[in-house]
């Protein structure tokens, strides 16, 4: 199975909303959402060309 992205989720990283995997997968699917290499824990892209939806993370 080929993997394009990974999300490193430490044991104490707890979801606070339903649909959190939906969101993560969506970020891996379509440009410009996918145009990042690393995002930090607050979702800020590092080295991205565009933000996903034009908003600041």
């Amino acid at each position, binding site marked *: 199975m*080929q*993997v394009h992205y990974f999300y490193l989720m430490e044991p104490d990283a707890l979801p606070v909303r339903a649909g959190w995997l939906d969101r993560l997968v969506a970020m891996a699917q379509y440009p410009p959402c996918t145009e990042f290499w690393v995002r930090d824990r607050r979702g800020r892209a590092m080295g991205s060309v565009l933000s996903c939806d034009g908003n600041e993370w």
Partner: protein
Amino acid sequence: MYPAGRSAMRESLAWLLQPRSYLVIVTLCLGLLLLHEWRLALVFVPRGRIDAEAPITAAATSRIPAFGAESALPSAVGGGKRRRGPASGVGTYIHVLDRDGLGEHVSLPAATHNAAPRTTWSANASSLAEGGALSGGAGHERHLALVLPYIDDQAPRISQMIRRWQRYPPCAARATLPATAYFYHPSSTSKIVGKLRQIWESMPAEVTQCFDGGMRTLYAQLPDRVGFVHPDGTCGQFYALFNILHEQVLAAPLCSSRDGVVLSAAALHACRCTTST
């Protein structure tokens, strides 16, 4: 005591009582202190490094040139406090691999570890920024690995985390996403794999069906002296993950020169390909 000795002692005492003597003595003490601290620093720095000859490189990171012994591992991980177990509270999202781009588009997390040297992969990530590789749109499904690092002692915490997924389901009802949950252990064996599977299987379908790849286990195969020490273990585990996931891509036929793309030597080696250049 001989008269000459008494005279020498008297002179020494007189020298010590002079104000400038205090200055000399204080300077000498400071010099010795600095030398001592400097020596300590020399001792501490190697302690923090993951030696390039350590099994970690042979086991996990040296197989792909771009993540070879020197480039993959941080050169100055240490210096901070050490404690057992991985770091906590980290959620990092990383673009690991892009098959269209021959799996080279991986960047090192500069903000996570600014000591990481620039590698072939991070260099290729620059071309990604220029829009050369990310052209995947509709119909090109990209797979996400949800990597859950843990150590055996964290079984209760893992259990608590997964059970929380019932309260906040990962996906919408009856959805199945291109994702796999990977439980990721720093060593080569885990005593709680069976327990993790039990927990996973006991989860309601609305949680497990979100992952079309289901649940899997990964091992970083770090030596214990590295894998269970923070921050070296966490860091080594993070870097080893690139290769582990990368090799999963390599399991599929990958190496075909397309559209006149010239493969780098590193890519060819990584692909274990016989393509001639």
